[in-house]
């Protein structure tokens, strides 16, 4: 899902923070973030995960984004 949204990502990791498969820390470094405010960077990640966020599969999501520029 994330790999589809960020095919150019130089770093992409998903950490299951609690081991229960519903609290995640997502870290993405991608050129898609270059020049974007943090809010818009996080919006892109939220959009990529819209389905599992909406149906409650993801109970808690932490996001860390970085551009490549």
């Amino acid at each position, binding site marked *: 899902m994330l790999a589809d949204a960020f095919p150019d990502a130089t770093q992409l990791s998903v950490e299951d923070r609690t081991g229960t498969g519903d609290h995640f820390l997502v870290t993405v470094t991608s050129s898609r973030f270059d020049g974007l405010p*943090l809010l818009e960077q996080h919006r892109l990640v939220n959009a990529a995960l819209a389905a599992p966020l909406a149906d409650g599969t993801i109970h808690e999501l932490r996001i860390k984004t970085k551009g490549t520029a």
Partner: protein
Amino acid sequence: MNDLSAKIKEVIEGEPVALFMKGTPQMVMCGNSLRALEALRRAGAPVTAVDILPDPAIRQELSALSGWPTIPQVFVRGELVGGADIVEELEQSGELERTLEDKLGAGYRDARDEKTVAVL
């Protein structure tokens, strides 16, 4: 627009800093809500908190308005700043204080206000 949505909008647009959270500043029910609240406190922001837990509809209407899926959500002068990760990162870089100064004026810390309002 229904009454609940209108009330949420009124808080977002009417309060200098609105924090939609799980629980209240006196009894925070979620780690991320606490992270956002503490970052705002460090920045000296006047916080108007809204507990979204009393009714799932609050969160649904809020996310429909903001286009943001998770809680907490922080707004300054009607504009979404972000969730816990963003607010924390902006506070650490000093950008949150700059935004508060820009939007609320240099004396924003004097208010030191922390209150909770209900939207139901």
